């Protein structure tokens, strides 16, 4: 395949308040790859992610999803292709019940009736949350909320999954369940994270974003073994973790 799952070239972006968040970011992600987006707070990771489905539009440069440029006429299809899981699940779950929330995306795609219902059921089953369908989002635990947020996106059958801090605030069991679900998904994944063991376990490739551009790109284990590089970008391995002794996450 000639085109990549995600192609970002020379993207610059300045917020309305004048803060330059991206200054020439380049990134190419192949189909089926799982990539960790690492970097300090305020590096532009989330801003970069929001370029992928046209929530933010670049001041300069191009973004393509599966060869499709992110432009106004393509927005609906781009947003179908890119599933965005936001950091705060409370932002993502805005409907009165879980079922309606998961149905929101596919219903916007025009699905109705039985087809819609089966889409919702399958998405919830996919994250092990089928029994939560009739609950209200604010009555779910943190881990349940995160998995349901993932289901709302999976129900749209995206080609690329973008996760913003997927493990933040989860207890170890919730984190483990989430990793299990993500490992079972055969789609391109881009995960913004500070959780380096998570990156090492899930993603075969990692990039470091700092100062609004991609400053390092390589196999996750190699990147994490480079202490100097990590230190230069305010990253640090958890105490006792040596990426060289961990079997690497295999490219699929």
């Amino acid at each position, binding site marked *: 395949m000639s085109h990549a799952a995600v192609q970002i070239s020379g993207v610059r972006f300045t917020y309305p308040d004048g803060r330059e968040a991206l200054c020439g970011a380049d990134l190419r992600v192949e189909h089926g790859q799982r990539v960790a987006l690492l970097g300090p707070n305020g590096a532009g990771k989330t801003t970069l992610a*929001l370029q992928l*489905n046209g*929530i933010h539009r670049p001041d300069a440069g191009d973004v393509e999803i599966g060869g499709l440029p992110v432009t106004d006429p393509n927005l*609906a299809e781009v*947003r*179908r292709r*890119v*599933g*965005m899981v*936001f950091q*705060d699940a*409370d*932002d*993502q779950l*805005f*409907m*009165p*019940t879980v079922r*309606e929330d998961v*149905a*929101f*995306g596919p*219903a*916007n*795609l025009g699905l*109705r*009736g039985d087809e*819609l219902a089966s889409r919702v059921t399958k998405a919830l089953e996919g994250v092990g949350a089928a029994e939560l369908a009739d*609950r*209200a*989002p*604010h*009555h*779910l*635990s943190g881990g*349940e909320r995160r998995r349901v947020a993932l289901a*709302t*996106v999976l129900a*749209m059958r995206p080609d690329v999954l973008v996760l913003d801090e997927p493990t933040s605030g989860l207890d170890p069991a919730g984190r483990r369940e989430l990793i299990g679900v993500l490992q079972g998904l055969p789609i391109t994944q881009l995960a913004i994270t500070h959780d380096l063991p998570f990156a090492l376990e899930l993603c075969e490739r990692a990039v470091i974003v700092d100062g609004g551009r991609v400053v390092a790109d390589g196999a996750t284990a190699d990147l994490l073994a480079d202490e100097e590089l990590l230190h230069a970008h305010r990253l640090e391995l958890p105490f006792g973790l040596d990426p060289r002794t961990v079997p690497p996450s295999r490219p699929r």
Partner: protein
Amino acid sequence: MGAGHAHPLYVHEHSPVHRLAPEVKLAAAFAFVLAVAVTPREAIWAFAIDAATVGLVIRLARLPVRFVAARLAIILPFIAFAFLIPFVASGERIDVLGVSVSQVGLWGTWNIIAKATLGAGVSILLAGTTEVPQLLRGLERLRVPPTLTTIAAFMVRYLELLAAELGRMRTAMTARGYDPRWLWQVRPIAAGAGALFIRSYERGERVHAAMLSRGYSGAMPTIDERVASRREWLAAASAPLTAGIAAAVALAVVA
């Protein structure tokens, strides 16, 4: 958190009343209250019929009597006010237990008590058998503008979050020794309210981004398309119809 219950006003049951489509229940409740409101206050028998009807539906819905009674307490403040009317109203005065009161005022008190109790009873019945999301869907199907139902839905969804945020803010203030006693100590509360407003606004922006990400294009999609059957409408109409006939007869008698 994590509990299955939805709302303190809702009673989880599997009754015929629970199963009725929400728009049917909403319309029936509204019509019933309307019928009660136009019933002349002198027709005590008509109110008895209305009360019996509400009681019957409450039985049918398997709502615990104690639950309904406790919720009915909400009208007590209004009733307390109504008890003043016989003493201050003018007109022909009669003696009740040796106290001189206005007869018109007495009727006024009775009128308020009867209608408020019936109205509150119907509302408790509606809320007890219909979950909030269902109520919103019912309003939508009754052609309430979708902008209004969407705003209401978001309010229901985010009110608890806002309250939790406020709670955390208060805890944080208390933890740092803030213990307001005087008016001039109110500044931190005002600042807190401002911060809460900004945070809610920012959350609104993030929710909007999340909606756009999932293909939102300005209108909420129709998700549940089940419409109420004619039988449901008929079944639900029986209650307001009873009250309506009672009101009509009472009006005819009075006139």
